[in-house]
């Protein structure tokens, strides 16, 4: 029997050079499941998805099936979706309400909303046996965004989140009530790629001219700035916020208000959009409202699997080394008109998902990457813009939008986690 050496992540990720094994090696994938998803924090759900007691949604942590469920006290638990008897999946539906308890339909074991084992049929035969409760994940909640880890003693949640918290703040403040809700349903897009290629692609500001050329040639949009401009004319920036979180700061390139909602100087605001601006001014005052109206929500990746995609929320489900499911849903705002939220739903369909105007092209291009990685390992070169980043007073690195500073942010964190 041969003993395989542990993988040396310091050589796999080296100063902007990435060994392509990292996208298709099964052992690396298993390490990631353990180190990143089981031992570290990842996004699982938003609190608004389970508004009532007993409401649940099915999610996974790594590949482990979990339920995000609202308990009797109103808290949100993340508990295993596997019966502790013989491992049967407890809830098969994507979402629902279990009322007061979760019953396994194999042998009738009953669990409470905190995972406690409440009863087993014909209990006398179980006398003296320490049947198990459902394992509970450790939960962190920031403004309704629920993250979880299987690690009972993880790093402090707010330390993990770091500046990710300010990115979530900027998403949530787009609601005049300071609250969002994710209840328009999720779409699921299957990519035959490693999950990390999607993390890279979403905050890559370099590919727009090529991957999205067909859209640029078909409509006038805010993306035209990025597509048509020369290198020096691009004002948008790429930002490394630390902890693996990164952003394409699109607002720097917006020339008018509400561009993020599809408006431009040539397109007059509809009544719902005017109302929305008014609601923001009332809630936040002129200065802060003006910034929100201009900037909109962020385009940012929160390590490892949450993508705040402007007016959408996206996350990744990890299942196989060469296969990733991207889930997306429109980020609906509390305290705005129904028309405003319907507009956000239409934007979501245009931008994301299998028949949208953007993502099918990203999907195909990254699938072509994945299929080429089957050959000999190669060095992936993510060094673009190295040396021309600006470090601001907060230690945040900012660079030209086409610079791979966002991807290096991801990989630096990855290396820290994998070598810890």
């Amino acid at each position, binding site marked *: 029997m041969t003993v395989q050496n542990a993988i040396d992540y310091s050589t796999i990720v080296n100063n902007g050079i990435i060994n392509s094994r990292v996208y298709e090696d099964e052992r690396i994938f298993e390490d990631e499941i353990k180190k990143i998803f089981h031992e570290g924090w990842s996004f699982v759900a938003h609190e608004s998805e389970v508004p009532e007691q007993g409401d649940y949604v099915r999610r996974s942590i790594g590949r482990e099936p979990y339920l995000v469920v609202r308990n009797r006290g109103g808290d949100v638990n993340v508990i295993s979706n596997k019966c502790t008897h013989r491992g049967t999946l407890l809830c098969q539906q994507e979402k629902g309400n279990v009322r007061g308890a979760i019953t396994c339909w194999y042998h009738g074991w009953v669990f409470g909303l905190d995972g406690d084992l409440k009863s087993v049929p014909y209990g006398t035969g179980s006398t003296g046996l320490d049947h198990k409760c459902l394992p509970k994940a450790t939960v962190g909640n920031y403004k309704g965004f629920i993250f979880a880890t299987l690690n009972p003693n993880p790093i402090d949640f707010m330390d993990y989140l770091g500046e990710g918290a300010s990115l979530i703040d900027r998403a949530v403040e787009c609601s005049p009530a300071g609250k969002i809700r994710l209840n328009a*349903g999720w779409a699921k*897009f299957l990519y035959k790629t490693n999950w990390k290629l999607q993390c890279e692609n979403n905050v890559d500001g370099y590919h727009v001219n090529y991957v999205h050329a067909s859209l640029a040639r*078909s409509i006038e949009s805010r993306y035209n700035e990025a597509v048509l401009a020369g290198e020096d004319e691009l004002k948008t920036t790429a930002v490394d916020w630390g902890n693996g979180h990164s952003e394409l700061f699109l607002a720097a390139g917006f020339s008018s208000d509400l561009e993020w909602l599809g408006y431009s100087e040539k397109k007059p605001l509809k009544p719902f959009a005017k109302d929305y601006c008014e609601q923001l001014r009332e809630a936040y005052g002129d200065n802060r409202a003006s910034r929100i109206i201009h900037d909109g929500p962020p385009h940012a990746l929160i390590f490892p699997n949450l993508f705040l995609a402007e007016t959408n929320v996206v996350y990744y489900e990890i299942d196989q080394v060469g296969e990733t499911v991207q889930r997306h849903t429109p980020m609906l705002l509390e305290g705005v008109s129904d028309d405003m939220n319907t507009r956000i*739903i239409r934007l979501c*369909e245009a931008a994301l*998902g*299998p*028949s949208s105007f953007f993502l099918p092209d990203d*999907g195909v*291009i990254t699938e072509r990457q994945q299929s080429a990685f089957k050959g000999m390992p190669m060095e992936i070169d993510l060094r673009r813009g190295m040396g021309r980043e600006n470090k601001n007073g907060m230690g945040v690195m900012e660079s030209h939008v086409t610079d791979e500073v966002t991807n290096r942010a991801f990989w630096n964190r990855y290396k820290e986690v994998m070598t810890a």
Partner: protein
Amino acid sequence: MVSDEEYRNVCDLLYREARYADNAQYDEWERLLTDDMEYWVPINRDNPDPETQLSLLYDNRSRVSTRIRMLKTGVRHAQVPPSPMTRLISNIEVEPLNDNEYKVCSAFMLGELQIQSTKDLHWWIGRTEHIFRRVEGDLKIARKRVDLINSQEAVPSLAFLI
């Protein structure tokens, strides 16, 4: 009830539309549409309300033409080259709505070769509800709703005309 001739006319349009879509004959396909055509692929089978629920696509006429323009640029990578595909249409039921409109329900199976990247052969299966309208003598498509049996599961790129 519709007459045999009406039924045949409806089937002709269904099959013609399917052939144009299969063959990536985008202009021909678009010429079958009314000026206010609506093209919809819902996700949620129980509550598909597009005002409050996300769909896979929900195009008004202007968005349909953007879709077609993109496909015609030659750089819509997700359809370069266009997927070789064949769809079978069956279980056709026609119901007259008024003097010049029909509701047409049918089932389809569509085999698609994902030639642009994975080369996987994928089966798209579902039901279609069309509204056909007679405009200046010609039968046209005023609405197309496609319900995939797996709309709530993970699906691959759907950049072609389904």
